[in-house]
């Protein structure tokens, strides 16, 4: 490619006396181009990442080593924020809440997504495109709208769910008054929004599985169920890992749903029943002006937890893959 370019001079004019020099210069430019232009092509991303990703991260790390008042003084205190974090009840409370909501949202969500994807993958199904589109719609709706509508459904006095419960003779539930009930309500918002998204990714994974495997299995007399267990699931593993890691990142950063569920109160429930890690970070880092450094430490803790969980995930899956 590049060689052919050097042999063809850019202008069709008769060769001037210094043709060899020009040719040499063209060759040099071409080599530079070949060597460095790929870096330039990807530079915009890295520039933007540097400004909006890397710099804030490093700055947050720097902040976390200080007693940092957002509009006042900054005092270097080393790792004190981190050691305080380890003995902070409300940090651990937020961690438990985050993992609780994560489990309640991710596990049913992925099972349901798997089921739906398998259904949509069936050749028998009519109007497939319609269903595939329809299932994605919740993901397009804004989080705030979802949270507000679900907040109304889960209201104590006039909420739909309590009305339904009253029909079967169950006492109204104070949804934001208990851990289990608030977690369920928040998880249901997450599930509603993300099940369709995960279904589509799993569906794409399923369609990449060679058809002849199923044909061979069918000829051998394997049932649909058996085909699902022995072919679909094992072949889907890479896609599944991807989906799980995405859900982990989303779950660890859960913020808007619990915040709006609790009427925008950053402590998430009267006794912090559903305050997530991201909310705790916001409370310390943004709401309380004078503890921004501590908030930065919480932010780094969240980052480390995501890395740890993803690593664990990766190791686990790699072991079972062998």
């Amino acid at each position, binding site marked *: 490619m590049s060689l052919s370019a050097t042999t063809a001079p850019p202008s069709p004019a008769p060769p001037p006396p210094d043709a060899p020099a020009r040719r040499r210069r063209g060759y040099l430019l071409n080599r530079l181009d070949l060597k460095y232009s790929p870096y330039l092509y990807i*530079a915009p991303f890295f520039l933007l990442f540097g400004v909006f990703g890397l710099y804030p991260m490093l700055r947050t790390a720097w902040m976390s080593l200080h007693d940092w008042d957002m509009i006042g003084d900054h005092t270097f205190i080393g790792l004190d924020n981190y050691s305080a974090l380890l003995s902070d009840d409300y940090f651990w409370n937020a961690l438990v809440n985050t993992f609780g909501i994560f489990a309640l949202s991710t596990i049913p969500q992925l099972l349901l997504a798997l089921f739906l994807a398998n259904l949509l993958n069936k050749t028998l199904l009519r109007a497939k495109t319609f269903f595939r589109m329809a299932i994605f719609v919740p993901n397009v709706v804004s989080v705030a709208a979802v949270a507000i509508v679900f907040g109304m459904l889960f209201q104590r006095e006039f909420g739909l769910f309590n009305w339904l419960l009253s029909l079967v003779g169950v006492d109204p539930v104070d949804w934001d008054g208990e851990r289990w009930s608030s977690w369920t309500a928040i998880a249901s918002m997450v599930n509603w929004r993300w099940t369709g998204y995960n279904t589509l990714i799993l569906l794409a994974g399923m369609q990449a599985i060679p058809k002849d495997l199923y044909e061979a299995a069918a000829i051998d007399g394997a049932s649909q169920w058996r085909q699902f267990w022995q072919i679909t699931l094992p072949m889907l593993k890479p896609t599944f890992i991807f989906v799980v890691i995405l859900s982990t990142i989303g779950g660890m950063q859960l913020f808007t749903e619990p915040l709006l569920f609790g009427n925008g109160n950053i402590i998430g429930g009267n006794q912090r029943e559903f305050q997530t890690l991201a909310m705790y970070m916001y409370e310390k880092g943004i709401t*309380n002006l*004078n503890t921004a450094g501590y908030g930065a430490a919480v932010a780094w803790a969240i980052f480390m937890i995501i890395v740890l969980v993803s690593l664990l995930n990766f190791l686990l899956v790699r072991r079972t893959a062998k």
Partner: protein
Amino acid sequence: MRLTTRRTRLAAVALAAITAVGGLSACGNDDDDQPAAGEKPAKLVVDTFGEMGYDELVKQYEKETGIKVELRKTAQLSEYRPKLVRYLATGKGAADVTALEEGILNEFKANPRNWADLNPLVADHSKEYLPWKWELGKAPDGRLIGLPTDVGSLAVCYRKDLFQAAGLPTERDQVSALWPDWNGFHEAGKKYKQGSGGKAFIDSITAVSNGVLFQQGADLFYDKENNIIADSSPAVKTAWDTATSMVDISAKAQTWSPEWSGGFKQGTFAATFCPSWMLGIVAENSGAANKGKWDVASVPGGGGNWGGSWLAVPEQSKYQKEAAKLAEFLTNATSQVEAFKAKGPLPTNLEALKNEAFLSYTNEYFSNAPTGKIFGESVSKIEPIHLGPKHQAVKENAFEPAMRAFENGQADKAKAWEQFTKDAKTQGAF
């Protein structure tokens, strides 16, 4: 041909990269042209939240002085505060005149160097305002950082039709006479509950605690030296005990929650506490169908305060002197009466409080209640209080959640109190 296209592309990428970097560095050096001393500013910017009623006043000031004034309004305080924090943290973007609400004033006062000292910039007005209101505008180091705008003196809004159905009096004077103190209020609530077949009387016990807290005139979560005394403060304990005792007549609807907003139309509760700025919110939540069903009575125990603001000039303003003059104009007696007539914020200027137009004002939605007179009277009963630097955080994130935990049956009284005293220490640290 191929070479040229590739070269153009290379150039394009390089150009994009350069403009990206250039654009970023351009953000760094904004115009730093300082005005020459004594030069008249072309424009002053005013930052307010909610409705402070300055639209017409600002136009008048423009005409009188020839200085253009830009009024930047933010609807909610919760959006306003983060913006202000950003302006102060980055040292740019703040308006020349900035409104500070009671709840956020203290934490911004904690770093007085962000604000211009108004003492040398304006004439001495210390005797013209409610004394306690004037005092709160001063920073701990003695600098005057805020000129008083409005105050949120308390009244009780009640539903006449629901009162009548439950066999309670409906005339506002008779209703006020029902509750000279909080005990009377509780008794009225019990009577209402009986007469209405078990319906709740008041929206929530935190609303009650709010009223009790601010009418005692004693130190609340902090003492005068800003030590946290949340667990030993008698005023806090009184508010706690009074409020928690009323759990039997509470609708358990947290202020601003959907249960609360919806409760106005549904008649979930028959009374709520109303600073004058709350009247508009009550009217909006209740809807046109309930016009004339609400009325306004005095608050048990007399006095009490919820909300109210100051005007401050950020240190980063380039025209501090001119900005201070504008703030002075917006807070003078005539302006405060005009603002009250326009949007309802209650004057703090003593002369404005005696103004005829203010005192004769009646509110149509609330059965033509003479709100000017009612609120004007209760203003004088407000007790001056020293609020500590993190007062709002202690109240909103420690005191009220613990109280709600008790109200909703999540914790008994002792456990809830324990939760409050524990959280007050972390929330109140500064």
